[in-house]
């Protein structure tokens, strides 16, 4: 699929970054950041996901079609999460008219 061949240096660099992020997220888990603990943990997880997809899965050099499919998929995932959570978070806020 991808004709581009990355250097070993790139792959080992990405791997080192992934390990560093794993250590950081584990260490930060013991610090009380209140609600931001979740934000930081998921932010780091998203960074790791980007590193893996862009470099290890070669999305960096992939065709526009591949990128479009991936972004479309993530968009649907976002829709599913946000719509369902909107429903759960606002149930009972307004009451049901006519009941």
């Amino acid at each position: 699929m991808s004709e581009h061949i990355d250097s070993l240096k790139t792959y080992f660099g990405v791997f080192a970054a992934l390990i560093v992020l794993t250590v950081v997220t584990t260490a930060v888990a013991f610090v009380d950041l209140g609600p931001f603990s979740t934000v930081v943990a998921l932010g780091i997880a998203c960074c790791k996901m980007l590193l893996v997809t862009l470099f290890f899965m070669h999305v960096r050099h992939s065709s526009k079609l591949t990128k479009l499919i991936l972004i479309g998929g993530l968009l649907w995932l976002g829709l599913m999460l946000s719509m369902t959570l909107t429903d759960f978070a606002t149930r009972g806020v307004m009451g049901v008219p006519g009941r």
Partner: protein
Amino acid sequence: MWIFLITEIMFFGGMFLAYTIYRGAYPEVFAVASSSIKIFLGAANTVVLLGSSLTMVLAVRAAQLGQQKAIVFFLILTLLLGGVFLGVKAVEWKEKFDEHHIPGPTFHLEGLPDDQQGHAQLFFTLYFAMTGLHALHMIIGAGILITLIFQANRGKFTADYMTPVDVAGLYWHFVDIVWIFLFPLLYLIDRHMKQGPL
């Protein structure tokens, strides 16, 4: 392959959604339950799995360059690291069995009143469903790797024909990404509220 991975995103996405909703409903109980999981094995396993992703990508690179022996070598290394991950996972599950943290009649989580035990069971149901589904994907991935190792050993893959290795690599990295999200959600994010065992 990408289309298949998108369906997989939605498949796992449903479980992440269920987790998010119930965590929102019972945050304190989930914090206690999540903190009962030992963090060290999970973190070590994350490193092992990331390492297997590195060896997998090196196998793909070897295939791109047409280096027959290197493909076999890196695929075997990936399989071994995947095996280590599953082994550690088995140890973690065994511990949960011994501690009666498996949802069922004998379930008991220390430090929680009786009326909240059910909510803790909910956490462990999600824990076992999510890590179990992930482990199942790893086992399928291991089967794919074994097939590829035999084929690569016969010299089937060259620089001109390496799509199976490429596609298996995408699958393996996807399973890695699922774990990248499972690890903080199940092991980490509630840790600061209640210091559990390492």
